[in-house]
C-alpha cells in the first residue's frame, strides 16, 4: 500500500488517489512512418521492466489531475523520488545503463 509524494500537491498521499501509467521517459518517435515494424513494435510494447530501480509515470487522478514521475524500487517498493515531467531523475540504476548498452535492437528514436 504505497504512500506517494505528489510533487504538485507537495504532500504524501495515499495510493488510492493515483493510477500507475507505465514506464517513464519513453519518447514518441517523431516520425513513426520512418520506423520499421520492428522498431515501432519495440516502441509500442517492449519495456525495461527492471527488478529494482524503475522510472515510472503516475497520475494523481483523484487529486490534482497531474502526471508526474517516480523513481521506485520494484522489489522493495521504496519510492526514492518523485519529480515533474520535464525533469530528470536523480537516482539512476547502474543496470539501466548496462541494459541500454547491451540491447540488440535500437529503440526507435530513443
Amino acid at each position: 500500500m504505497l504512500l506517494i509524494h505528489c510533487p504538485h500537491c507537495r504532500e504524501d498521499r495515499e495510493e488510492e488517489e493515483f493510477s500507475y501509467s507505465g514506464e517513464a521517459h519513453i519518447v514518441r518517435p517523431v516520425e513513426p512512418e520512418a520506423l520499421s515494424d520492428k522498431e515501432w513494435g519495440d516502441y509500442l510494447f517492449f519495456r525495461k521492466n527492471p527488478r529494482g530501480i524503475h522510472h515510472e509515470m503516475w497520475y494523481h487522478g483523484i487529486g490534482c489531475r497531474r502526471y508526474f514521475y517516480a523513481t521506485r524500487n520494484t522489489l522493495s517498493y521504496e519510492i526514492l523520488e518523485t519529480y515533474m515531467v520535464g525533469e530528470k531523475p536523480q537516482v539512476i540504476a547502474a543496470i539501466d545503463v548496462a541494459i541500454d548498452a547491451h540491447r540488440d535492437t535500437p529503440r526507435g528514436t530513443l
Partner: protein
Amino acid sequence: MNQVNRLSAVEGTRTRIDGTVPINFTFNGKQLQGVAGDTLASALLANGVKVVGRSFKYSRPRGIVGHGAEEPNAIMQIGSGAATVPNLKATQVELYEGLEAASVNGWPSVNFDLMSISGWFGRLMPPGFYYKTFMYPAKLWMTYEHFIRKAAGLGSTPVQSDPDSYDKLNQHCDVLVVGAGPAGLVAAREAARAGARVIVADEQNEFGGSLLASTQTIDGQLAVDWVADLVAELNGFDNVQTLPRSTVFGYYDHNFLGILERRTDHLGISAAAGSRQRMHRVRAKQVILAAGAFERPLVFAHNDIPGVMQASSVSTYVNRYGVAPGSRLVLFTTNDNAYQTAIDWHRAGRQVVAIVDSRSQPKGDIVAAVKGLGIEVMAGHGVIEAQGGKRVKRALVARLNAQGADIVGPVETLACDLIACSGGWSPAIHLSSHTGAKPVWDDSIVGFRPGKSKQQERSVGACAGTYALSGCLDDGARAGAEAAKLAGHGDGKLYFPSAAVEEYKEQPQQALFLVPHSKKTSRAPSQFVDMQLDVSASGIELAVREGFESVEHIKRYTAMGFGTDQGKLGNINGMAILANALGQSIPETGTTIFRPSYTPTTFGAIAGRDIGELFDPERYTAMHRWHAEQGAEFEDVGQWKRPWYFPHVGESMHQAVNRECLAVRKSVGILDASTLGKIDIQGPDAAEFITRMYTNSYLKLALGKCRYGVMLKEDGMIFDDGVCACLGDNHYLMFTTTGGAAGVLAWLELWQQTEWPHLNVYFTSVTDHWTTATITGPNARKVLAKVCGDIELANDEFKFMDWRDGTVAGVAARIFRISFTGELTYEINVPAHYGRHIWEALIAAGEEFGITPYGTETMHVLRAEKGFIIVGQDTDGSMTPADMNMDWVVGKNKTFSFIGKRSLQRSDSVRENRKQLVGLKTIDANTVLPEGAQVVFDAKQAIPMSMQGHVTSSYYSANLGHSIALAVVKGGHSREGQIVHCPLADGRTIAAEIVSSVFYDPKGERQNVE
C-alpha cells in the same frame, strides 16, 4: 456441572473475573456457567471440560493448550443461524450470556468419535499419502475426493446473509504501538507525552498483556493496579487513541497496517447500529511492535492428550481467571521462567507432583524458591510420554543426557492430570516478518529475533527477545521517545522515571526441541509438532527421508504451520527437528516467512460498508426520477443506470422495444443521452491537439460545426468514438462514449502533460454539467419548434452536423443536430439543474405527436438499422477503422502522424482476411441471431470448425419487418451476397446472407426530412 476448577480468592493475586456475575452458556448443547471476565476457554476449564475437539486428520481427542492466539485445539463454532461464526478460538472468545459454543469436529460427539483413527491404522496416513494413492483407476478419483472433502474443514459457514455490518476508519498517526503489555504501555506514554499522535492497539479485551496474569509488583503496586493507572493516564491524552479488542493483523508497505477491532462480539448480540467489527486502515509514521512472545511447547510422545498445556497458560488461568485446570501438576521445563507456574499452582492450593527440568543443574534463584516450598525438582529429566485417553493420567519421565538428546536412565511414572510445559519462548515476530525483515536466529534466547527493519518500525520487549520485565519497561520507554522524535515530536529523551521491579535473575535455558523417546522417532507414539494439522516429528523426518530439504517443501508436504494458529506454537520446534534431520543448524535451515493475517480476519470487515447498494456508486442523470416513475427498466452501463426500455403495463420487452422503434421512425422519440462523456477543451493549440488524437482532422472545423471522430490507441485499435464540436476560437467540446469518459480524459491529459506540454490546451470534464435530451424522428423539428423560438430550425439554416445556442422552454440550451438513429435529431443540452424541466417540457410539447421515451435497447436497434457501431460491442480491442468499414474517418493527408496511425500499416493491420464489419440478414426473416453466435462458411464441417467471425449486434427490426445483425467476418467486405451459417448450442444452425451493414435509409435522407 458446576465450576469444579474455579478457585476461591488466592492471596497476593487479583483475578480479572467478577465471581458475583454468573454467565450462562452452552457447550455442545450442554448448559454451563461461567462468570464475568471469563473467556470461553477459562469457563470450560472451570467446568472441568476436558475434550474440546477432535484433531483434523486423526480425529484424536484434544483439550485446551494455550490461552490466546496460539491455541491450536479449542476451535469453536460460536452462535447459530445467520450470526454463527466458525473457527473461533475459545481462548479468544469473551463469555457472554447465552453464548452457544460447539466443537467443530467429532461425530457424533467429541467424547465418542466414530472417526477416531488410532494405532497403526493412522500410519497409513503419513504426510503426502494422498499424492501416492487414489490414482487408480483414474475414473474413481472424483469419488475418492468426494469422501476426502467430506472430512474437510473445521467449522461451518452460515448459509444466510450476514446480519451484521462492518466499517472502516482511515487512520493517520505518528506512532502506532502494537500491543499494550508492559513495553507497549510505557512506549505509548512516552510518545504521547512528547506530543505525538499515538494509537495503541491490543488484541485482548483489556490492556496489560502478560501483566494481567502476573504476580509481580511494579513500583510497589500489584502489576494489575499499575496497569490500570497507566491506562487511565493514556486515556487522559487528547492525542492518544486506545483500541482494546483490536488485532493488528497485517503490516504492509510504507507503514500501512490493518487493525481489526471487535466492537460487539463480546456482547453476543448482532449490533443494531454501528458495526460488529471495524477495520482501521492505519498509515503510521513510526511503528513500535510490542507484540510479546509465545511459549514454546515441548514435543514428546502423545503430548496432545488433553491435560498437556503451556506453562504460562496454566499460570494465566490461575492468576487471571481463577481457574485451576486440574489437580496434580507435573511441570516440564527447560528454563527458570516456567518455575513460576509451579509457584502459582502451589499457591492456589493444588499439588505440584514434580518439576521435571531438562537441565542437569538448574540453579537459579527461583529454583531455590521453589525448593523452599517443598516442591520436588527432577533435574536432568524429561517427560518422554504422556499417557491417558481423554485426559492425562500419568507422565513417563526419564533421565536425559546433558544435550537432552538421549534417554540415559530408567523410565519412571508420575501420576498426574496436568502436564504444564515450557520449552522457552518464541518472540512474536509475525508483523516484523510481514515487512520483509528476515528473522535472525539467536542462540542466547533460543529463538528468532526480528530482522533488520525494512520499514519505520522497531520491536521492543518480548517480541524483540527481551523477557525481563525491567528490560521491557526500559526498552519500551526508549522506543516510545525515539519513535515520537523521528515523527517530529519531542527530543527523544525520556520523561518518566523507570519503574522499580523485583524479579528473579534467570539462569540460561536449554534448547530442547524434540524430547527423546525409548523408541526411535519413526516408531515412537506420535510426538506432535503442529497439533491442529496432526504434524508429528516422525512426519517431518519422513519428509526429509523422502528427499525434501527446503523448509518450504517440508511445510507444504506436511502442512505444518498451515492451520488457523499459523504455527505459532509448532513452527520453531518443527524447524529445529528439520534442521536436526538434515544435519544442519537452524539458521542454515532458515525460517518461513509469516504472512498476514496475524490472526484470522473477517472477510466482512475487510469488505467494510462497500457492499450491497454501496458496492459501487450508482450514477444517475437529472431525469432519473422521471424514468423511475414511468416504470423504466434500467441497464447498468459502467456505473450509470440508464433506462433500458419503458414498458407499458403488460408489455414484454420485445413489445416495448418494437413500439419504441416504430414510434421514432414514424413520429418522434426522446432519449436521455446525458451519460455520454463530455470534455471541454480550450487553448490555442486545441485543434492541433484534437487532430493528433482522432483519426481525422479538426484543423478546419468551423465554429458552429460538429464532426464525428474515432480515437485509436497507439496500437491502431479503436478505443473510443464520438462527436467533437467547435464552440469558439480555440474552444471545443468532445463527446465520448458513456463508459469511456474517464479513460479518454486521462488519455488526453497523458499526452498533453507528458508528451506535448508545449501544446497549450486545457481539458475539463463537463459530463455532469450538461443534461442531454435527444429528440429524434420525422416530427422532431415540430416538437422543438414548440418550445424553442429563437433558433431558425429550417434544414438549410440549422444543418445536419451543426450546433446552435438558443432557448428551450425558457432555458438557455445548446442544441446539436447530429444523429445516431438516422432520423432528424436534435440533442438538446442544458445545465443539469434544468434537466427534468426540459425533459418534461419536451414530453409535453411532443404529446400531440405521440412522443415516445425510449431506452438504450431501442437506441441500439435504431443505430444497428443504420449500421452505426458501438465501441466495445461491435469492436473488441482488435478492430481498426478499416475493419469497421470506416476508412472515411481516417485522415490520409494529415501532416501529423496521429495516435495509432503507424500501427495501421503493420503487416497484420493490412493483412487480407481481417475480420470486417458486415450486415447479416437471416434467411428466415423472423429468426434473430444470438449476439455472440459464431459464423462459419461450411455448416457441415466437423469440429473443430473453422470460425470466420461472430455476431456482434442482433435485433428484430420492427421497422424493416425482419431481423438484422451486425457481424465481423473474415474478409467480409468482399463477401456481400454470400451465405454464412451460425451453429448454435441448441443444435440449430442459422443461415444468413452477408449484406451491407446499413440496413435502413442507405442514402441518409431521413435526417434531412423537411
